[in-house]
């Protein structure tokens, strides 16, 4: 404790220099935590978006994930209701939603365009999507509709000049290769925020999709869990109980999520490294000046019987004080900015390929905060000790003669 007090007293010798050092350490820490908090927010948002889109687990025949189908639902599941009931028995499973993925044409009578369609369970599908699907007009699908209904992506609706209540015709190949057509009514228009997807995407209820394709099969079952953390355990249980099926997790299908995470990890990792190096240099520079000024005093303390290792510890503790105070101040700054952004929201511009901006948010992750502060303290101590090592081993006579 006495060494720590001595180290603290030493940092007060040149207050301006110490203040600048602490300020740079604080800004560096805050920058790392803000960038890291933003990255974590982005990861979580993308993870939620991906999991709510596909389900935390995707269950299907192995060929569904490895081969292209020659005819629609060639590798679909036959006994989906029975399988769904079995999956639903797992304590971590909240919903099991069937999906029928198909493509074809959609026509308004005058114009036909390509659609990428998904047949879904309307009662639960749109509930689990939450804020990741925004309705621009009309309503979401319902299971007890009097006639076949569809929801169109914004771009597809514009292309077909369709709005809620408009009549359209869906054309697709059936599972036995014949062409089938079905009249539907537009129930709503939505946006995923990605124009390229909204130009082609169409939702219909699963019964309509199966009628159009003339099948009882579904492509896959999307399993929605009670929490993201339950994914790995649930995957192992479901895969173990169904060895003839493949069980993928949402990360297996979330290419965009993985790409963004890889990119951000590299960008923010490099940023953190650069900031860390800057902080090390600033602390080392401050300590170098302080130690040169105190060479004679170090000689005196050595003459009085202080071991070089004790002086090294004292200098490292000075680094701890400078780096620690700076890191804690930086953590407080980051915390303040995070709270401020919750109180006064700031909207980020839409990312490339998207039409929707998103709120700028900084996640306060206790583990990241603790790790960053500890890392700052550690590198500051290391830099201080490294700088001091030569002076504390200087011959005492030489140190005492230093002017």
């Amino acid at each position, binding site marked *: 404790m*006495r060494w720590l007090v001595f180290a603290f*007293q030493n940092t007060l010798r040149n207050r301006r220099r110490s203040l600048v050092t602490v300020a740079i350490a604080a800004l560096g820490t805050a920058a790392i935590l803000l960038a890291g908090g933003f990255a974590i927010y982005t990861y979580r948002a993308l993870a939620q978006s991906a999991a709510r889109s596909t389900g935390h687990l995707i269950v299907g025949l192995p060929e569904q994930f490895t081969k292209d189908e020659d005819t629609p639902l060639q590798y679909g599941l036959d006994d989906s209701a029975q399988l769904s009931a079995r999956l639903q028995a797992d304590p971590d499973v909240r919903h099991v939603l069937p999906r029928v993925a198909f493509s074809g044409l959609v026509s308004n009578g005058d114009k036909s365009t390509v659609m990428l369609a998904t047949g879904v369970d309307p009662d639960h599908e749109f509930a689990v999507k939450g804020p990741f699907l925004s309705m621009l007009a009309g309503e979401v699908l319902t299971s007890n509709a009097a006639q076949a209904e569809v929801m169109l992506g914004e771009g597809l609706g514009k292309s077909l000049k369709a709005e809620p209540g408009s009549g359209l015709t869906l054309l697709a190949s059936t599972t036995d290769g014949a062409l089938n057509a079905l009249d539907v009514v537009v129930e709503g228009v939505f946006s995923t925020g990605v124009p390229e997807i909204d130009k082609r995407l169409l939702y219909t209820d699963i019964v309509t999709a199966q009628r159009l394709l003339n099948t009882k099969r579904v492509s896959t079952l999307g399993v929605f869990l009670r929490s993201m953390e339950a994914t790995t355990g649930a995957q192992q249980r479901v895969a173990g109980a169904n060895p003839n099926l493949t069980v993928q997790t949402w990360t297996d299908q979330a290419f965009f999520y993985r790409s963004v995470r890889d990119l951000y990890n590299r960008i923010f990792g490099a940023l953190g490294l650069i900031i860390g190096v800057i902080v090390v240099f600033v602390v080392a520079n401050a300590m170098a000046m302080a130690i040169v000024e105190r060479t004679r005093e170090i000689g005196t*303390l*050595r*003459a009085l*019987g202080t071991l*070089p290792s004790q002086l090294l510890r004292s200098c490292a503790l000075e680094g701890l004080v400078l780096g620690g105070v700076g890191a804690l101040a930086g953590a407080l700054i980051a915390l303040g900015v995070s709270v401020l952004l919750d109180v006064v929201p700031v909207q980020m511009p839409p990312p490339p390929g998207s039409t929707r901006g998103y709120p700028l948010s900084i996640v306060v992750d206790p583990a990241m905060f603790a790790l960053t502060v500890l890392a700052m303290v550690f590198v500051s101590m290391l830099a201080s000790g490294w700088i001091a090592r030569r002076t504390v081993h200087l011959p*005492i006579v030489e140190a*005492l003669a230093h002017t």
Partner: protein
Amino acid sequence: MNGENVVELRAVFKTYRLGKHTVQALQGIDLAVKRGEVVALTGPSGSGKSTLLNLCGLIDTADAGDILLDGKSVAGLDETGRTLLRRDALGFVFQSFNLVPVMTVAENVDYPLFIAGVPAIERRERVAAQLIAVGLEEHARHRPDALSGGQRQRVAIARALVKRPRLVIADEPTASLDSHTADQVVAIMQERCHAEGAAFVIATHDARLTPRCDRVLSLLDGRLQ
């Protein structure tokens, strides 16, 4: 020489290199200082006084000869051994006081006890006693920059004596003081020396100091006269 000798030098030589030149700082010094003895080293600048003090204080090493502290040779000690011996057995008083400016008077005096691992309660008692002995108990919480030169040197003396050393090395302890203050400091050193039973080796140019010493040795060109 006998077991009463605190420090003993036997045929000690020391040379320095100054650029291309070699300076013979000490040439075959034989010296013994007894317990409780105050020895003054005098001589002109460059005569080897500081070098001799440095060797007695174990902050420098001899090129030849032997140095004994309490009858034991220090020649075989490594740097850590010498540091620990300084910590336990030696005190230092410097010309320019060399107090730690960020520590209070009490903390400066306490420092040698702290690094020696003396328990806090005992440290407090010994520091208080030393400060009373040098008349600075009122200034215990002051920092050195709030004290006069004489007061600072008294703090340095208290710091040197607080661990009850067997030998105190004092390099020009009155050189930075006016004559009145120097008299006070010398009186305190003499009184504390006798009270604590420590030997003093003092390098000085100050003629007022030598009459108070038990023995005065004169150095010239690295040799005792």
